[in-house]
């Protein structure tokens, strides 16, 4: 094997860093949801690698100045995975990790669905599906009109692509050539009660986004190097918003949670918590 170039070594270090970040986020979230008796662990684990790559290597944000006007924006449109963003922000230094343990607790501002109040680094409170992409498009439109260079990322669930309002925004963004806007879809193919295929079929999914005028990139959603390559190539096409369809596994990282509808809601406690902890700790 030939020696790695400097670029490859840097890339390798970046991936090691984001993989380590993802592991810490999963461990934090497991503890948060177990202690707080919270739900949606499957939905969080599905998107952790996407979020770790974005915050670890892509987003231009500063934890010491979370309100900088020229920062990249990130909107978690699938607000039910709030625990994952709280853990990510804490791990990245936006606020102390100790605060995470208040998740779901009486009097806490760390709600199950992501909220911006009192939480540095959260750009938008969400929780009702189908809101995030419109707000992201507004931010992207504003940046364009002001000739500012920052990007706006919105992370959507596949389930929220059932919402008509999502498609209003999907129609809007290409019309206004918002190539500073990125919609990342966490496509784990499982929604609240059943698979997307058995609920409301989204396929041909990439074709739909493409037909609306988006540049579409499909990526293995747990492959950090692949995610990094896609996110470093934004906009994928000049003049078009980018849709990144991330093929993911719901509950990724804990064997008995993976691809199980049950773990959309179930709280990991007792034996299940211990077993999940062992698996996540062993994961390299």
């Amino acid at each position, binding site marked *: 094997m030939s020696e790695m170039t400097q670029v490859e070594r840097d890339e390798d270090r970046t991936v090691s860093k984001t993989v380590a970040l993802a592991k810490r986020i999963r461990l934090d979230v497991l503890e948060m949801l177990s202690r707080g008796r919270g739900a949606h662990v499957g939905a969080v684990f599905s998107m952790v690698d996407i979020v770790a790559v974005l915050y670890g290597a892509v987003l231009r944000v500063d934890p010491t100045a979370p309100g900088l*006007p020229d920062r990249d924006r990130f909107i978690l449109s699938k607000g039910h995975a709030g625990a994952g963003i709280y853990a990510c922000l804490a791990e990245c230094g936006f606020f102390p990790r100790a605060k995470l343990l208040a998740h779901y607790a009486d009097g806490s501002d760390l709600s199950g669905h992501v909220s*911006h109040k009192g939480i540095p680094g959260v*750009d*938008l*409170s*969400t*929780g*009702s599906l*189908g*809101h995030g*992409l*419109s*707000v*992201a*498009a*507004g*931010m*992207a*439109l*504003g*940046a364009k*009109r002001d000739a500012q260079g920052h990007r*706006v990322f919105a992370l959507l669930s596949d389930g929220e692509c059932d919402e*008509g*309002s999502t498609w*209003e*925004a999907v*129609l*809007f963004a290409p019309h*206004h050539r918002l190539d500073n806007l990125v919609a990342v879809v966490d496509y784990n193919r499982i929604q609240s009660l059943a698979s997307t295929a058995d609920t409301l079929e989204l396929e041909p999914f990439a074709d739909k986004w493409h037909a609306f005028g988006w540049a579409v990139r499909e990526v293995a959603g747990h492959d950090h190097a692949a995610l990094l390559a896609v996110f470093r190539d934004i906009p994928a096409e000049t003049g078009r918003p980018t849709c990144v369809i991330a093929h993911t596994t719901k509950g990724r990282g804990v064997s008995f949670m993976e691809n199980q509808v049950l773990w959309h809601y179930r709280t990991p406690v007792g034996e299940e918590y211990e077993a999940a902890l062992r698996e996540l700790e062993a994961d390299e």
Partner: protein
Amino acid sequence: MRDAFVRAILGLARADDRIFLITGDLGFGVLTEYWTTFPAQFVNAGVAEQNMTGLATGLALDGRTVFTYSIANFPTLRCLEQIRNDAAYHDADVKVVAVGGGFSYGALGMSHHATEDIAALRAIPNVTVVVPGTVWEAERATESLVAHRGTCYLRLDKSHGEEPADPPPFEIGRARRLREGTDATIIAAGGILREAQEAADMLADERIMCRVISMHTIKPLDLTEVKAACRETGAVLTLEEHGAEGGLGSAVAEACMDCGVWPRRGARLALRAGFSSIVGSQSYLRTQYGLDKHAVVRAVRQLLKTPQSK
């Protein structure tokens, strides 16, 4: 009122490039001057009110003052959750403007009768609700909303009341007393103020002297003016082109409960018939549903005949 709004926003946009207007594909011939003069401060969202309101929030969170514009129930009920979760929860500087309050579009049918909007918007925390009664108020209200940070609702009407010869100033949250009297107070919001003013003229011929208030801000309500009406006049009547649940009359009644101050006699004139499946002009429907000047005259006479409750 619509033209007054357009006049005002043209001036606002000229003075401040952070003013932005989004229409939900309405305003033919009305907004043309705006979008040709200020294309960088305008977007037509298409027939997509949820997206329009989300866009407005995104633009506002990054430092703009954003007006969303449509008619009847479209900028309000159609996207109520976006107003609640996106705009209001974030205290975003979004001004929701609905043209065609009440029965302004009476002939167009139930879909275009905006008769629950005040109740719905008033129930959402952080939302200021402004319902001008005159053309002058509509223009001042539009300007004042920009200085009044946060999410606001502006309900504009096709009809309008008249400004007195010596008009009192306009300030959000402060009612305007347009006519003085001590026998009864008529509190009105919106263009239906005209019916109150004409009724007051008719009652004056009978030597019943009415105070007429334009309660242009329904939230926050001017409690001082409500208390004054209760204490200083013999009866209080509210008048609105809106359902009886949750509108102006409800707000005034709630204020009385909260303040522990009661009118000697009181009544609420509002829509009590539910949906209107019949159509007609705004004035026809007011008559049909007992909200015109004759109904106001009858209601005031009735109040003053009622033995004082104690």
